[in-house]
């Protein structure tokens, strides 16, 4: 179900519940209102009955026959007023009770009528009158009391129902909301994890999509992106490589100039002095040419090795040799920028299991960055150590450059993050990060403004 639908559903169910409670409460109020109206009428009736009984008492005390007229009169008035509000009374106490009440009133009236028509004093009739009056009052008192109790009960019930309903609504909104939020958050977490892994260059995918809501479409889109990035990673690595190749070539061109000059000078002497040289000398000179040619070949080969696109091909390797190879390749770049190099390679570090050219590329990236961060006279240090007793082999590349602002440090390995403005592609560091991650290693950076930056690479030691 879509998140949108879930939210709408939970709203609707809450509103429906509130409506139900409203209807229930309104209904209760109506009942209470009718009962109250009856209680009001009942008070009046009660007063009338009381007056009737007082007149009845007057009759018995003073044998005053006019008292009987008064009672009769009162009964009629009462019957009339009952007739006027019959509806309300019926609503409150029901048809049966009302007719019973009327019945009692009528038999009370009949008892009075009997006494009046009988001129003689009759003890039996008087007792009957008293009993009828009593019955009428008792009955009415009873009804009134029951009604009062039922009003109380209804109010109490309403209170309870309202309390429980509010509790239910509260729980529903809290737990229902939380349930929905939790489902959304779970999907969001998945997406977050995916984004982090992509930014770290590991191009994972979420294989089982747990929901069918909007998050699912986001996940599908990100899976697609991850696939595409994975496909293009090789391309990106290669293009970045070609970019750094441009910088390297400048250095390498200078490096080629030395052996070329050597060959040229040997050749000049060879041609100039050919006749005066003995055979041994001539051969010696040609050997020099041969050696210098090999030197050129080595430089060109290094450059081509670096440029060649390659699938990861892990081999056991001596990290110190890899570092030296890179340093050789970059010596002239360092010389041009007048950077002093300090190498401190621990010969006892264990071998690592690496793709040589890829690790070389990481080192080239780090060194180029270091060179760009420093002004002439700066110092570049490359250190290797560690790797013993199950620890990682550590390669440190430090410069004495301008440093990286603290707020940039967390983004240094993000793709397309660059502090170099238009010059940088912002991919060098993220590719380095990806390569080191693929080697199950780690890379981190520490930097102090105007003091320098240190990149630390950890690679697992090779176990045979």
């Amino acid at each position, binding site marked *: 179900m879509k998140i949108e639908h879930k939210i709408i559903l939970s709203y609707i169910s809450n509103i429906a519940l509130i409506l139900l409670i409203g209807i229930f409460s309104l209904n209760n109020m109506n009942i209470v209102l009718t009962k109250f109206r009856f209680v009001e009428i009942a008070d009046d009736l009660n007063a009338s009955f009381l007056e009737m009984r007082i007149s009845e008492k007057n009759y018995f005390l003073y044998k005053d026959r006019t008292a009987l007229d008064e009672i009769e009169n009162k009964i009629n008035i009462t019957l009339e007023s009952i007739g006027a509000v019959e509806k309300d009374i019926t609503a409150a106490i029901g048809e049966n009770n009302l007719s019973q009440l009327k019945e009692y009133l009528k038999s009370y009236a009949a008892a009075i009528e009997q006494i009046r028509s009988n001129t003689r004093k009759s003890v039996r009739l008087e007792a009957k009158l008293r009993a009828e009056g009593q019955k009428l009052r008792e009955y009415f008192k009873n009804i009134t009391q029951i009604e009062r109790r039922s009003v109380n009960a209804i109010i109490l019930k309403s209170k309870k129902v309202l309390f429980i309903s509010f509790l239910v609504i509260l729980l529903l909104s809290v737990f229902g909301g939380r349930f929905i939020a939790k489902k959304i958050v779970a999907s969001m977490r998945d997406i977050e994890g995916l984004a982090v892994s992509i930014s770290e260059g590991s191009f994972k995918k979420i294989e089982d999509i747990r929901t069918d809501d909007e998050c699912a479409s986001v996940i599908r889109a990100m899976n697609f992106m991850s696939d595409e990035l994975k496909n293009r990673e090789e391309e990106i690595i290669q293009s970045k490589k070609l970019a750094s190749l441009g910088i390297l070539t400048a250095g390498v061109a200078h490096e080629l100039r030395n052996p070329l000059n050597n060959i040229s000078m*040997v050749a*000049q002497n060879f041609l100039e002095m050919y006749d005066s040289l003995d055979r041994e000398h001539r051969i010696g000179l040609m050997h020099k040419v041969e050696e210098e040619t090999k030197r050129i070949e080595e430089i060109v080969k290094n450059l081509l090795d670096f440029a060649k696109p390659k699938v990861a091909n892990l081999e056991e390797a001596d990290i110190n040799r890899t570092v030296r190879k890179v340093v050789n390749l970059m010596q002239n770049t360092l010389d041009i920028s007048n950077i002093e190099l300090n190498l401190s390679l621990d010969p006892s570090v264990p071998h690592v299991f690496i793709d040589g050219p890829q690790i070389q590329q990481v080192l080239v990236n780090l060194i180029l960055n270091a060179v760009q961060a420093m002004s002439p006279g700066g110092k570049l240090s490359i250190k290797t150590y560690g790797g013993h007793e199950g620890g990682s082999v550590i390669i440190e590349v430090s410069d004495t450059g301008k440093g990286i602002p603290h707020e940039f440090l967390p983004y240094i390995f993000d793709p397309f993050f660059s502090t170099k403005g238009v010059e940088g592609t912002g991919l060098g560091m993220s590719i380095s990060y990806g390569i080191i991650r693929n080697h199950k290693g780690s890379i981190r950076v520490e930097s102090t403004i105007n003091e320098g930056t240190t990149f630390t690479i950890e690679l697992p030691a090779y176990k045979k």
Partner: protein
Amino acid sequence: MDGYRIMIIDDEKIVGDMAKMALEKEGYLVETFMNAEPALERLKAVKFDVVVTDFKMKGIDGMEVLKRVKSLYPGTKVIMITAFANLDTAIEALRGDVYDFFPKPVKIKELKASIQRALKKA
């Protein structure tokens, strides 16, 4: 030309060897060094008429050599050679009282001619 002392400083061994080979044939006394420290030590003991030095070297570089030579022997001519041939280095070199400046690859004939001119001027 006999008897003039020429010093060659270059961290590429072949440069010294080839320059020595060509210059000794002309009758110069040639000594070669692969870096600046021992060369400057030697200069303290013996005066050289021309010093040919690489511009960019590890440790003491060509400009520093020039300064030290001139402070010891103001009359000694200094010729620079370098693989890093660009306008900036050339200008810097010539400003600093350098007699001549050769980018690699060095034409030995031109180097010889330059040394001859330098000695005549002295």
